[in-house]
């Protein structure tokens, strides 16, 4: 259980919080402004938010303003794909994003409410993404079945589950 993680992996933490939250943190070697832009600018999102090798995001709509829509469509180039839709709720430029999203597999999953913070951390940025699912059962389904594609940013360390 307590395997040694590589230096790369140790930059990211993933844990559950309470019954309905999943919290992911990651340090980036860039200013909060750049990391924030990479999370909201469609052209930048299409370069990294791709999941497993071989997948692309041919359609990326990201209207980064309160009430703005988001729609990400992924494809594996072999006729398979799925998409995510969502809405931006609050944006504090370069510091904080609040949005809701759902995956269409093809039926929509329950809304995932996500607050993402970008804070100065040394020379770079600490990103903290806190997801809130409607209930424990939805979080369980998301962790157990909703992420075969590896696209959803919701991962847990068993150690933290066990440590409560």
């Amino acid at each position, binding site marked *: 259980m307590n395997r040694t993680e590589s230096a790369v992996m140790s930059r990211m933490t*993933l844990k559950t919080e309470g019954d309905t939250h999943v919290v992911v943190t990651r340090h*980036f070697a860039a200013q909060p402004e750049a990391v924030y832009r990479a999370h909201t600018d469609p052209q930048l999102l299409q370069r990294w938010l791709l999941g497993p090798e071989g997948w692309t995001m041919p359609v990326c709509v990201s209207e980064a303003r309160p009430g703005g829509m988001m729609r990400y469509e992924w494809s594996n180039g072999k006729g398979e794909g799925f998409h995510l839709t969502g809405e931006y709720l609050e944006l504090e430029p370069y510091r904080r994003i609040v949005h809701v999203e759902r995956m269409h597999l093809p039926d929509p999953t329950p809304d995932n409410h996500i607050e993402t913070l970008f804070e100065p951390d040394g020379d770079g940025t600490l990103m903290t993404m806190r997801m809130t699912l409607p209930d424990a059962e939805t979080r369980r389904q998301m962790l157990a079945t909703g992420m075969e594609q590896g696209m959803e940013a919701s991962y847990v360390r068993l150690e933290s*589950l066990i440590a409560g």
Partner: protein
Amino acid sequence: MPNLDSAFSALSDPTRRAILARLALGEATVMELAKPFAMTQPAVSRHLKVLESAGLIVRRAEGTRRPCQLAKPGVAAIDAWLDMLRGALEKNYERLDAVLAETKSEIKS
């Protein structure tokens, strides 16, 4: 091998997670497990049944005692699954690292 769906279902309950946390320290009997939770033994037994059928714990017979311990294959299967998911997410972030590095040099040049 455990069914991941039933394993995650078993893990979705805070009491069962706490029981696993206790068992991570070593095996324990129902009575020992019931103590810190202010729960009746039958209630703890019900949780143990869920954990057992999810493949997360095993119980061995020792006279009249049936101490519980973590089931290593079950725990390892979940860990492997989560590792895969972590890996997929980390792959995104490694790509983002590269995008950020490129963006930085684009600004400089």
